[in-house]
């Protein structure tokens, strides 16, 4: 019996989603009793899935992401990342990539990528080895000694992705990472991200305003309502992988995009 119990427990762990959110609500304290930002959010993100969250501005998407990253604590409900709560940032479990690349202007590209490792006191040679591997992964070989002001917007965001991946966290949270880029760079970056994702097998939670980007990238799309943010739709994107730019012109792509758009319009 003991043996059987162990097997069941093991199976439960294998099947356990990478992220589980249960009954999460959040109220920002204020003079007039506070603002309800998130309302009763329950969701699960399977291991290795690419989940995109869309929703109107100010619906609390970023707040939710901050909580998944351990940067903020919800007023109510529980979050479990890889089977454990996340009371504070844990960069070895969760990597975060923000809208602004936010590279440190006083560090070179390689030093920026190594920053998370140097915080943990990883030895210099090991840091260099890993940051150079990340640099190759994001396609920036030869730019390691450059400083952020010498890089374009797209390149900066690549560095920021490399920095997010350097500790090899199984979970990657991305808050509108390509929103500040021009349309063409944005599409290229999305494509690059899918390539990186397919080679690294990460679980990704990705926030965006762009419906095209959402459908192009996602396995699943979660649609959130206006404040207080709730999950109002959960859409499976069944388009085959690898995705290509040509798919955007297909009817299936258009229908998915249209369904999300209808939901967001209702939500706003």
């Amino acid at each position: 019996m003991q043996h059987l119990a162990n097997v069941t427990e093991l199976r439960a762990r294998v099947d356990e989603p990478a992220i589980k959110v249960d009954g999460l609500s959040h109220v920002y304290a204020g003079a007039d009793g506070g603002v309800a930002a998130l309302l009763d959010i329950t969701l699960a993100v399977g291991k290795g899935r690419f989940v995109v969250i869309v929703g109107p501005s100010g619906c609390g998407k970023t707040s939710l992401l901050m909580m998944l990253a351990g940067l903020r604590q919800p007023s109510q409900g529980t979050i479990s990342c890889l089977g454990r709560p996340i009371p504070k940032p844990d960069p070895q479990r969760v990597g975060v990539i923000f809208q602004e690349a936010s590279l440190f202007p006083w560090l070179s590209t390689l030093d920026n990528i190594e920053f998370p490792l140097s915080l943990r006191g990883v030895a210099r040679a090991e840091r260099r080895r890993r940051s150079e591997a990340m640099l190759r992964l994001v396609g920036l070989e030869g730019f390691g000694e450059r400083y952020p002001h010498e890089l374009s917007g797209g390149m900066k965001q690549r560095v920021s992705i490399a920095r997010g991946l350097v500790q090899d966290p199984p979970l990657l949270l991305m808050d509108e990472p390509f929103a500040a880029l021009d349309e063409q760079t944005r599409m290229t970056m999305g494509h690059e991200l899918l390539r990186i994702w397919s080679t690294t097998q990460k679980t990704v939670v990705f926030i965006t305003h762009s419906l095209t980007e959402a459908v192009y990238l996602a396995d699943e799309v979660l649609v959130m309502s206006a404040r207080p943010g709730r999950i109002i739709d959960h859409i499976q994107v069944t388009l085959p992988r690898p995705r290509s730019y040509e798919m955007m012109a297909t009817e299936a792509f258009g229908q998915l995009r249209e369904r999300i758009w209808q939901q967001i319009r209702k939500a706003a």
Partner: protein
Amino acid sequence: MTRAQIIATRLALLVLVLGAWELLPRLGVVNALLLPPLSQVLVTLADLLGRASVQEAVAVTALEVIVAFIIAVPLGAAAGIVIAENAYLSEIFKPVLFYVFSIPKSIFLPMFILVFGIGFQQKVAYAAFTTGFVVLMSATAAVESVRPDHILVARSYGATQSQILWRVYVPSMLPFLLETLRISMIFNFTGVMIAEMYASRTGIGHLIANWGENFQMPQLFAGVIVLSAVAIIFNEGVRALEARCSTWRT
């Protein structure tokens, strides 16, 4: 214009000014008693630098400047950073500080003389007082230059409070702090000079004031040359450091 041409033009201007300084008094265009020729001033300068009394005055002034600087910079910077970082203190003190900052500090000099006398302490206290304000105001601005998104990134990668201080705050603020150092030294030097010229028994400022009162123009100009050289050398030294940090200034 090429770099070489610009430098040549600057040198030509310098030669022109120095040449005029030498020739105009000699030709009687300006009164040589009010503006002695450059060569005469330089001879006087060499003579003065060899005198024990002048050497002592220079040493006293240098010590006053250094001590005031050492007191004012850390105190002002610490106060500025604490005020800028603490929302409550910032709310209380910022307007007050801005009001006080606008007052010319020299009007407080008589009070410093009453409290500290006319010796070393008075010079140091007055200079530190004027400098401390400048440092405090700049340190406040330096803290505000730290980008919140940089702090958020560091936090998301698990940085501790002290790691955030040393790896985000300090490098973000460094260019501003160097600028502050440079400007505060100008104020510091000015503070010591004013205090020495106002009431003192020694120091280079005291000598300059005396030479002026006694109509010893070659000595007065020699003093001006020495002080200008010291001030410019310090200023340019810090500026060179600043230039090295300029890669991340943006």
